[in-house]
């Protein structure tokens, strides 16, 4: 009990004095997950919009598949990306395994289906409402998709933030493809796992607290955005 109390005190101390090691790890985490989520959004949002407005054979199975991909276990994604990037793998020549780039790839693979599937759902609801009106005004499929993306932008921000939260909180994939190398590929989640097993509770706890704060902050921002949007545009 006393140990835990002391660990908490020390953890808050580290956060308070912006401990260098702690700050480095948080910075790398945010950088990796932010880049991954930008990549995932650039792929996932157009994909979601296209699935919302296009009708083609095999669309329904594709949506089911995409929804299933949302539940991909991070370790499995890590394993697949590892196989892809390892020396003998098809993308081995890139030589990015055990670098932050590999972690970005893994997290982007993890988050893209989430953004695509959730945005498809949101955009399709809007499409149901808009379709006749937009077709009546002569909108092509492509410009209708753009209209949907713009008119749903606030809900989409919420979805992208959820994707960021998922990326930042995930441990299995970055552990496998990043290797948890100190000062190079050690992010919040992998550091927590390692430090806990080593018994360095203050650092683990400090990172844990920051991670929780981050997740709460993301959710708060998301709900504020949504509320403002509804108030402004109905």
């Amino acid at each position, binding site marked *: 009990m006393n140990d835990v109390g002391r660990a908490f005190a020390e953890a808050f101390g580290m956060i308070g004095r912006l401990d260098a090691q702690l700050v480095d790890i948080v910075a790398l985490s945010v950088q990796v997950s932010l880049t991954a989520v930008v990549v995932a959004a650039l792929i996932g949002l157009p994909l979601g919009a296209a699935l919302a407005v296009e009708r083609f054979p095999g669309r329904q199975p594709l949506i089911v598949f995409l929804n299933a991909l949302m539940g991909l276990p991070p370790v499995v994604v890590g394993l697949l990306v590892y196989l892809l990037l390892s020396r003998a793998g098809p993308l081995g020549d890139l030589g990015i395994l055990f670098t932050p780039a590999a972690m970005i790839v893994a997290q982007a693979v993890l988050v893209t289906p989430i953004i695509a599937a959730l945005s498809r759902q949101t955009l399709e609801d809007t499409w149901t*409402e*808009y379709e*006749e*009106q937009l*077709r*009546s*005004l*002569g*909108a092509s499929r492509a*410009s209708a998709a753009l*209209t949907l993306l713009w*008119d*749903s932008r606030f809900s989409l921000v919420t979805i992208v933030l959820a994707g960021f939260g998922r990326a930042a909180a995930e441990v299995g994939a970055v552990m496998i493809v990043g290797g948890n190398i100190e000062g190079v590929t050690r992010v919040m989640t992998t550091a927590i796992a390692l430090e806990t097993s080593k018994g360095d509770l203050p650092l683990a706890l400090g990172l844990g607290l920051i991670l929780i704060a981050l997740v709460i902050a993301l959710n708060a921002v998301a709900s504020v955005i949504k509320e403002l*949007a509804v108030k*402004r*545009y*109905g």
Partner: protein
Amino acid sequence: MLPLELRDVCYAANGKVILDRLTVRIDAGPRTMILGPNGAGKSVLMRVCHGLLRPTSGALRWCSSSGARRQAMVFQRPVMLRRTAIANVIYGLELSGFSRRESALRAHDVLEAVGLETAAHQPARKLSGGEQQRLALARAWALGPEVLFLDEPTANLDPRSTRDVESIITAIHATGTKIVMTTHNLGQARRLGDEILFMSEGRLVERASVDVFFREPASAEAKAFIKSELPWQ
């Protein structure tokens, strides 16, 4: 692009015939009111004419199919984009090829014409039902359509808003736009209409001038319809 000719147009969905061998010619000029009981197929007919639904069989021909679709439609429940009122009008204009500058000018003018200039920069979805309906009319009018389809344009409006909408429709007609509309308000059909197309169960039962239709309807269905809508006559 008028006249519009429909020959033996059928529309079926889920094995149910909704339009049954409709043959009709819609000419430029007179304001056409489509009347008929609920489920007669009025809305479906307008969607087919407007190109939103493809006939299952039969032919639909515009006189000239010259490039641009010079037609517009206002739906029973107006669909407003999550933008300001004026942005909704500009959106339609830009889609049909107007430059940004020209769109802004036209949008401003048309909002003034429907009495919404003070609401121009309010979010469209926050406007009242009557204002939204006027905005929908403005969005369609701005395009300068040759034909305007209106599906029950005053269906959930109070008498005041109904009057506003009716005078806007009259103004649109005065600028040379052909009006084709449905309504359940027979007084409105008399006020706004020149000719009546009467439908029942997917068929075109009767076509007559407004005067003739209300004075001496030819078909038993139309007689019964008028009687049930205006029981005191």
